[in-house]
């Protein structure tokens, strides 16, 4: 490998690393636009003109609590304190095969039914939370798109660089 090739590779790597500064990857589906400057609450947020919102956040939990713990904590909070209806729950996998949990909630806001889907993953000492919500009507309308975006989430670094970059600063995406 000559010097030019090495520089080019390094440039590409640094570009990829600094590309978005998020420790996960998510694709924005047609029909959604990504919103800027959503920190600190969200690392990524996108929405449709009708108000369906999709968001991902990575929370540093220092390896504390497994998926079952966080799923239970979130469920308790929503059901008992906020009165959300737990409509469904199931085991899922991220695009990179990280096991996770999906929770579907329903809740009336100002007398209007809304649905709220949460996916949880544990990776990189973090808890990754992908959320999608909107009115029940619009969520049903965008169901396939939302599912596609949820399925696009990756929370681990690629296999080649994983040994090196699988850390808090893993910004491969």
């Amino acid at each position, binding site marked *: 490998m000559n010097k030019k090739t090495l520089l080019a590779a390094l440039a590409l790597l640094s570009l990829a690393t600094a590309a978005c500064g998020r420790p996960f990857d998510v694709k924005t589906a047609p029909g959604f636009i990504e*919103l800027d400057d*959503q920190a600190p*609450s969200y690392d990524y*947020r996108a*929405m449709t003109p009708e*108000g369906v*919102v999709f*968001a991902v*956040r990575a*929370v540093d*939990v220092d390896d504390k609590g497994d998926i079952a713990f966080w799923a239970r*904590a*979130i469920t*308790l*909070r*929503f*059901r*008992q*304190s*906020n*009165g*959300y*209806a*737990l*409509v469904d729950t199931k085991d899922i996998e991220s695009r990179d095969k990280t096991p996770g949990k999906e929770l579907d*909630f*329903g*809740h*009336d*806001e100002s*007398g209007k*039914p*809304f649905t*709220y889907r*949460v996916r949880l993953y544990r990776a990189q000492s973090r808890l990754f*939370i992908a*959320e999608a*919500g*909107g009115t*029940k009507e619009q969520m049903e309308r965008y169901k396939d798109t939302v599912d596609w975006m949820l399925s696009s989430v990756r929370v681990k670094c690629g296999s080649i660089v994983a040994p090196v970059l699988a850390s808090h600063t893993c910004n491969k995406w």
Partner: protein
Amino acid sequence: MKSVAAPASYPGGMTGGVAPAPASTPAFAQYSAETESVASADAPEGDGRVADNSPPPAPPRPSSPPVVPAPTTNGAPPKAPPTATDAPHVVSMLIYTATLNLAVFQVTEQMDKVEGIGHSIGGYLAVRNDQQITIRVPRERFDEALGQIEKLGDVLHRSVTAEDVTDQFMDLEVRLKNARAVRDQLQALLAKAGVKDALEIEKELGRVTESIEQMEGRLKLLRDKIAFSTITVTFQPVETQTVRDTTLPFPWLQDLGLSSLLNVH
């Protein structure tokens, strides 16, 4: 008045405001047996076709409260029920009440369904507002109604109580019987009294009659409460002490939810 835990399955077959007699509830079975004996005592001998060693016929359902005679309007003494004096009932008379907290999702639709369940099983709507609905259902279908309602949504909290009002019921019955006896005596005295005494007797008669009417009203209310169970469904969060007092120390957890998600900037 005391509350007791509800049985696993709720007895059915109640008619006339008194506990039914399912096989799983001995108290009710006892009542049923007594009712049968009452019915036998009052019943005509029949044609004698039933052999002495044949099994007894199935106990008839009580069609009216067994110990409370119908009030008379003409002042004549009511016919005393056969068991009211000599064999007071040892009956469990229970008022069933259920409270359900359902998650706040599609509230209007679910309230309509709760109301529909009430109507479909012979009950009626008692109260309905934005967050709460109360229906009253025939006691024998209480369990069925609860089961149907629980399937409507996410049940956050469920409470069922059975209030035993046997003592209260029996006490009222005895007092009513005594009051009626006093009234009968006063009426008999009135028939024989002179003008001066008649005024005093009529005054006392009025007081006793008023007391009888009050007791009859209370008995009627009790019978209604026993005959129709109350189910209240509330659509609101349950503020449990566990969550309120032991909130997990993760601010982001409090920040989750639709309000944060949809509040874009």
